[in-house]
């Protein structure tokens, strides 16, 4: 008896289930696109109102960010974010990178297994906890004692807190990059008689450099987007004067958004106060999005190479 096409088609009910499941799963995957669309939509409308109606003189040349009285000097927030990010990276890059090199190149599997959870637990600590730690320990014990800050609330303490939060991110992304360097490169180096330090510094690190750059960029993006540490430890509630001094209170883009939304439903103040929140959100979104796109380019470069 010959097999017909009908025999190969299989059970009708199973085919139907198969098709229904595929559609359901596809719909689930497509919700991610809906979310992106909603983010852009949420930001776009009020941002457009702000951009078209604001007096640009108050955005570019007023003396600070005081949305409730119509001073929208965005560079105050950009400089605040920059200060926090630089302080954070001074902590996170050496500590994170050093930890990653140790775990990937020096630690035995057993040591690695016992020490790595430290970083994973650090990664799980909520940012409000770092905010509390920043004003109860980092600011009085480090910033005020060694740098002579007069104000308990200052951007440097906030930056240190954000830096601690970013250590695990730098460590895990760079460790992935280091471990993806093929063993053959190290063996070749040893075969030439190079010592461990020479192999690590002259062979492994250069080979992994794209991934290390990606780690730093991702950490910068994370630091710029971090809200609660700066909201708690930065100390500027309603607004901030333009300042480049890390030892003074200040606002970042994120903290400005959070403090503007605190306590009130419809934010009171000048006509565009409410919209300015969305404007800052858009600037923040564009900056972090750009950084993430650049970082993923670097990550892909590592993957393609090895």
């Amino acid at each position, binding site marked *: 008896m010959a097999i017909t096409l009908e025999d190969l088609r299989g059970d009708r009910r*199973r*085919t139907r*289930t*198969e098709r229904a499941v*595929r559609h359901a799963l596809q719909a*689930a*995957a497509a*919700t*991610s*696109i809906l*979310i*992106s669309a*909603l*983010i852009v*939509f949420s*930001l776009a409308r009020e941002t457009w109102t702000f951009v078209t109606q604001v007096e640009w003189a108050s955005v570019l040349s007023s003396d600070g960010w005081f949305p409730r009285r119509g001073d929208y000097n965005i560079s105050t927030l950009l400089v605040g974010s920059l200060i926090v990010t630089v302080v954070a990276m001074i902590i996170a890059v050496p*500590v994170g990178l*050093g930890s990653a090199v*140790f775990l990937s190149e*020096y630690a035995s599997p057993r040591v690695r297994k016992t020490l790595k*959870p*430290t970083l*994973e*637990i*650090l990664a*799980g*600590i*909520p940012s*409000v*906890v770092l905010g*509390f*730690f920043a004003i*109860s*320990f980092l600011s009085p014990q480090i910033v005020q004692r060694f740098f002579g800050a007069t104000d308990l609330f200052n951007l440097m303490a906030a930056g240190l807190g954000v830096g601690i939060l970013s*250590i695990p991110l730098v*460590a895990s992304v760079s460790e992935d990059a280091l471990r993806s360097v093929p063993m053959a490169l190290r063996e070749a180096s040893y075969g030439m008689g190079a*010592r*461990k*330090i020479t192999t*690590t510094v002259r062979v492994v690190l250069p080979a992994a450099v794209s991934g290390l750059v990606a780690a730093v960029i991702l950490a910068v993006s994370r630091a710029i*987007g*971090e*809200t*609660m540490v700066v*909201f*708690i430890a930065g100390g500027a509630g309603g607004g901030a004067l333009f300042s480049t001094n890390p030892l003074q209170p200040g606002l970042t883009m*994120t903290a400005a*958004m*959070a403090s503007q*939304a*605190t*306590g009130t*439903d419809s934010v009171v103040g000048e006509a565009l106060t409410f919209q300015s*929140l969305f404007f800052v*959100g858009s600037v923040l*979104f564009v900056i*972090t*999005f750009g950084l993430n*796109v650049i970082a*993923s380019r670097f990550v892909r470069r590592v993957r393609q190479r090895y």
Partner: protein
Amino acid sequence: MALTTPASVGSRAAERSVADQLKKGGTDWAGTGFRLVLLSALGLSMLILATLIFNVVSMGLPVFTSRFGGFMSGTLRTRPEEAGLHQGLVGSFWICAFVVALAFPLGIAAAVYLEEYAVDNRFNRFVNVNIRNLAGVPSVVYGILGFTIFTKALRSLTSTGRANGLTVMSAGLTLAVLVLPIVIITASEAVRAVPNSLREAGYGVGATRWEVTRTQVLPYAAPGIITGLILSLARALGEAAPLILVGAVSGRLATDPSFLDLSQLRDKFTALPIVVTTWTTNPNPGFDQLAAAAIVVMLAIVIVANTIAILLRNRYEKKRS
């Protein structure tokens, strides 16, 4: 100079002899120093973690020893000796419930689609890139989404009249959206790690794609998926910034419903990280201890969750390698 191995000695001694000749240059100071620098980087992370935990525990301990029950069952008050955590616990419980009910199934489904079903075409590549980008969007921006969509546009669904959309339902939906990309990414990794031979065996006996996924791929990937779910839940528990945008109450919250009271879903709310923020920023120094005690409760939950996730992963990694 050539390395020489005396023929008369055993292999152990030969090894030692070669090692001695190699080390003739003396101790490798640069190498040892470098190793110490690296170790101290990791040591600093541990020191920071230890200091942080010691700092909060020593500050929060008096609250637990003097009035543990009152602290866990009390509400947000203006006097520190009366205030408690109960409303925050209830709010965070419901936020996590929304994450479990929405982000978990949606995230796993999306991951299964991307790893098992999706062919390499433009649309699926776009979805993949898009999810990676979503994971990098700052949490405050998700707060803006929550504010515009859940508290404003869907107000009639998420809120009773007096709450103005600033409800635990809006907050739960917002955080479900926030952790969705993380769930998808971690679940995808777990599904990708399933060996192809399992799938091929399934197809070989005539199973359909969904049958293979359901009976072979998902059970094998389960430990990895669950690890990711636990970590995402811990993340949702600690996230405060988006909740500020969707109007978590930081001052006085009139209602204090029990855990399973469904009517609170469309009412005003607060949450653990918001309570921590409120007490930390309160100028009355009496609240410092309360903030520390609330942090101890939150850290206990988060660290236990993380430890379970790490152990689960290590156990299955060992079993299968």
